[in-house]
């Protein structure tokens, strides 16, 4: 199973980034092979639709689970339709995030957070 986590850095000591669309990296942890893949979030530099750009990237990677702080309305709609499960977590280090997920302690995201329009740039 592939788990994508919005992160502030590239290692499991780094913290989870509460932002989905504008996080710096996605860490994709493959629970079967133990491999970690680091993605630069394309949404970070998008003038608009950051959540959509980030989602598109994770859908392409065929992830099964996303762990982040909040999902905006567009990203939520997209991720829900693509059948990926999303979970909410605080900004703790990635190894603890994985631990919490394994123990079933994370809450599933069933509703989107507020939209952040970067203005009409």
């Amino acid at each position: 199973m592939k788990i994508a986590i919005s992160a502030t850095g590239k290692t499991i000591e780094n913290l989870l980034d509460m932002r989905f669309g504008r996080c710096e990296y996605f860490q994709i942890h493959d629970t079967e092979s133990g491999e970690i893949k680091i993605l630069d979030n394309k949404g970070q530099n998008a003038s608009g639709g950051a959540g959509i750009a980030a989602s598109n990237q994770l859908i392409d990677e065929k992830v099964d689970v996303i762990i982040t702080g909040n999902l905006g309305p567009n990203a939520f709609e997209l991720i829900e339709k693509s059948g990926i499960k999303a979970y909410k977590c605080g900004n703790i280090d990635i190894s603890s995030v994985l631990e919490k997920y394994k123990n079933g302690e994370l809450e599933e995201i069933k509703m989107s957070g507020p939209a952040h329009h970067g203005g009409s740039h």
Partner: protein
Amino acid sequence: MNIAVLSGKGGTGKTTVSTNLALALKANYIDCDVEEPNGFLFIKPEVDTEEKVMVEYPVIDDNKCKSCGACVNVCQFNALAKVKDDIMLFQKLCHGCGACQIACKYKAITYGEREIGKIEKGTARDINCSRGILNISEPMAVPVIRELLKNLSDGINLIDCPPGTSCNVVNALKYADSAILVTEPSEFGLHDLKMAVELVKMYNIPFGIVINKDDGKDNIVKKYCMEEKIPLIGTIPYGKDTAVLYSKGGVLYDDLHHKEIFNQLSKAAKEVLSWN
């Protein structure tokens, strides 16, 4: 002669300056702060025409679409996404650039139109007034601003701009021959004024500064104008009488004391912005 009135910081008095200067100069008043146009609250024109502002969005023919995702990849605005075997559209993010139609090998994309706002025109006190209104929850204001400013009439047009230095202001400035920057003598006012000055300088048009809520002292904005050699058009004193008139939605120009202030400002503006 199109004069843009801008500020950087919000709430410094763009609308106060542009509505009253329009009256003093018998100029046309154009409110292009389309996200929150408030000039009509004061001038109260009778609106006689209303036009819709439309933008394009892609319509995907499901019979022709093979869900290849070429349209998703080419979209620079993230308005399209591929989910399983379906293409999802986020209408409000579309800029109508036409790239997805070109990228589609199956000719599955055409364009529809939708309304994002409107333009209202009317008259009050023998001056022509117009404004753009962006519908609630629409993120893109530029198409409304362009529609509003593309056919300005001859004579003097006072363009009441949005606050800040975003695309909305950049687009409004494209139509201006000169600019008046309204600010207040506070740190925030000065900070944002500096950004507005930087922006206006890129257009190579004459501009000057009006200080609203002026304390009458040798304040930070006056110092800045001196140092940067930017002409100070004039000041509007900080006074309770101004605030009371404003709070009632009154026109400052109707009050004798304020009438004098704005007549003075319009005279000085003509000199600074050097128009004939």
